[in-house]
């Protein structure tokens, strides 16, 4: 049962399994385990980022394509739903129209960019996507009549998802069953489904071809696989799933804006998570996202204390300033590209493999 659900791609390390279980249970029970809006927000963000990062891993880790346009697709999803709900009022049909529209736009864009530049070298694709994504972000913040400009748009979600809505009176386990909770579980289960779907994809024959292309595209082509077609397909797939992640994020935040959805910082976050978590392992997205988002939200508290303790020393205090947490992650990123390119998950798996290979 579990094997089918995970598409035969088990974690293959006891520690990794335990970590994954902790993350899964933590996310599944988050509304009941932790109280307060902030922790629930952290949990929802982790869910969305797991999907977003895993879809990026499909490109980077499995196919060996470096794209910098992933936030663009994420933003298209968020803006699609946001603008539809803003324009048509809070209804489920608006959500559907927005999602469908966003998916269509993403698909077309991914196809065009892919066919235009995927036939050439990886570097070329990376540069083109960087340029296109930057132009898209500028467009979104400048066409303020449509998108609300830098301020973005806040909107109302369908009634079922509104915080004021109560499904039943009273509380379960000390938690009111309100719209926020329903939204959280909508996000959680969608994320889970999308995650399992991606696990299925990378372990299908299609996924194997992608990995073959990553390892040696010339050879894959020689074996009769049209690499351009496969690359473009992977690109479209990654884009579509990123779009859905954007939809989930917009529904959760009830807000879309260029800073949270399209900025280059989101892209660097994704990159950091994929590499630190483990490229080419979908599980890396789970571990990486959980770690990263938790650090983003709670590491700063630690750093604030360190910074306060070092207040007398001029440069060191700055080094541990809470806003500089990205510096440390950047260093970790560079080190992990060199020393453990398969990331945390790869390290754990290698450790488990070494243990099982050792004669008893």
């Amino acid at each position, binding site marked *: 049962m579990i094997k089918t659900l995970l598409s035969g791609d088990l974690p293959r390390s006891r520690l990794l399994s335990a970590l994954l279980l902790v993350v899964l249970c933590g996310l599944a029970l988050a509304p009941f385990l932790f109280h307060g809006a902030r922790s629930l927000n952290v949990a929802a963000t982790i869910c969305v980022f797991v999907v977003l990062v895993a879809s990026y891993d499909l490109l980077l880790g499995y196919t060996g394509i470096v794209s910098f346009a992933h936030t663009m697709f994420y933003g298209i999803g968020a803006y699609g739903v946001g603008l539809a709900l803003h324009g048509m009022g809070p209804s489920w049909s608006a959500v559907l129209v927005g999602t469908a529209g966003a998916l269509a736009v993403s698909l077309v864009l991914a196809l065009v960019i892919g066919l235009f530049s995927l036939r050439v070298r990886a570097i070329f694709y990376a540069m083109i996507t960087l340029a296109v994504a930057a132009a898209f972000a500028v467009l979104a913040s400048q066409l303020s009549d449509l998108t609300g400009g830098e301020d973005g748009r806040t909107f109302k979600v369908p009634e079922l998802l509104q915080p004021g809505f109560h499904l039943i009176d009273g509380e379960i386990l000390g938690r009111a069953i309100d719209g926020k909770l329903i939204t959280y579980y909508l996000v959680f289960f969608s994320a889970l489904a999308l995650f399992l779907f991606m696990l299925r994809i990378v372990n299908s024959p299609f996924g194997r071809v992608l990995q073959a292309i990553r390892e040696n595209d010339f050879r894959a082509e020689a074996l009769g696989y049209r690499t351009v077609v496969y690359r473009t397909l992977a690109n479209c797939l990654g884009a579509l799933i990123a779009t859905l992640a954007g939809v989930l994020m917009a529904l959760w935040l009830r807000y879309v804006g260029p800073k949270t959805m399209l900025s280059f910082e989101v892209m*660097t976050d994704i990159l950091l998570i994929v590499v630190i978590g483990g490229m080419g392992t979908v599980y890396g997205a789970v571990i990486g996202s959980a770690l990263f988002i938790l650090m983003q939200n709670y590491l700063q508290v630690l750093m604030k204390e360190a910074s306060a303790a070092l207040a007398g020393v001029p440069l060191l205090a700055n080094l541990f300033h809470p806003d500089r947490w990205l510096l440390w992650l*950047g260093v970790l990123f560079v080190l992990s590209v060199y020393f453990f390119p398969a990331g945390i998950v790869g390290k754990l798996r290698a450790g488990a493999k070494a243990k099982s290979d050792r004669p008893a």
Partner: protein
Amino acid sequence: MTTISQAAPQDSAIPKVRVDMLPLLLVPVLALLMLPLVGSFPTWVTLTVAGLAMGMMVFMMASGLTLIFGLMDVLNFGHGAFVSVGAFTATLVLLPMKSWVEADSVWMNLSVVGLAILLAMLVTGILGWAFERIIIRPVYGLHLKQILITMGGMIVAEQLIHVIWGAEQIPLQLPTTFRGAFIIGDAALEKYRLIAVGVGLTVFVTMFLVLNRTKVGLLIRAGVENGEMVEALGYRIRRLFVGVFMAGSALAGLGGVMWGLYKETLTAAIGGEITVLVFIVIIIGGLGSVGGCFIGAMLVALVANYAGFLAPKVALVSDILLMVTVLLWRPQGLYPVAKR
């Protein structure tokens, strides 16, 4: 085929390379085409000079990147970091020597800016050496890792700038005598833009002469064509790599100082923002080609300026439109480098 074998014994000199003139014509043709659209001649002159100035600054930043790519097949996504570092290093000179900046004397102004540029180029050059050594050397030939690692280097560098110079943006004052504009007829030509054009042209001409008239330049050009062959002939291509990387980084630093003075405010993101433009320029020019990079920079900047005047909404995506147009015409860029 036969004509070649017949011709060979007759003239033993190296056959003359046919210069591809078409891209060279693009810039003047574009400028002239825009004249009737813009309408008034003075406005057109102002716009053109502004475009050329911006193009020169972008060229300074882009030329190093394209040369590094051409020679070592490394695309440095962290190139923007050198731009930022260059601009911020300049503040080390420009802020303490405020009295020289504010003085109403050309010589004092020039020397203080010159000193700032010198320091910035020195620092970015050394930083380039370290960057090549620590970040890039282990990943030669691995494109995927190169992109990731240089991106990571960029993140770290940007954060380090925050650590050293603080997170607030720094206002940068343009020296007194560089302010204002020359009025010729009805056209206003900002002095600083003219200076930028001058510096840019100097860089281009110097680079052109070094590449085409010196032994080092010959080796670099040969390295771009076929690195292994250069090595086989007994030249240490590694030293060439390091030298070009340092020079490219120093040029980015120079561009950063010029760009920072042009913007008059500094944020650590300055390099990241310009990186996109730089990439578009080197794609248009043909990856690895310095001449193409020059024309690409001029085209991008001119189009951006004209579009900003004629149709501001189009200006937001004019760079991308230009790139797509050029690539539809020449998929490898204006001057494709042979082996790529």
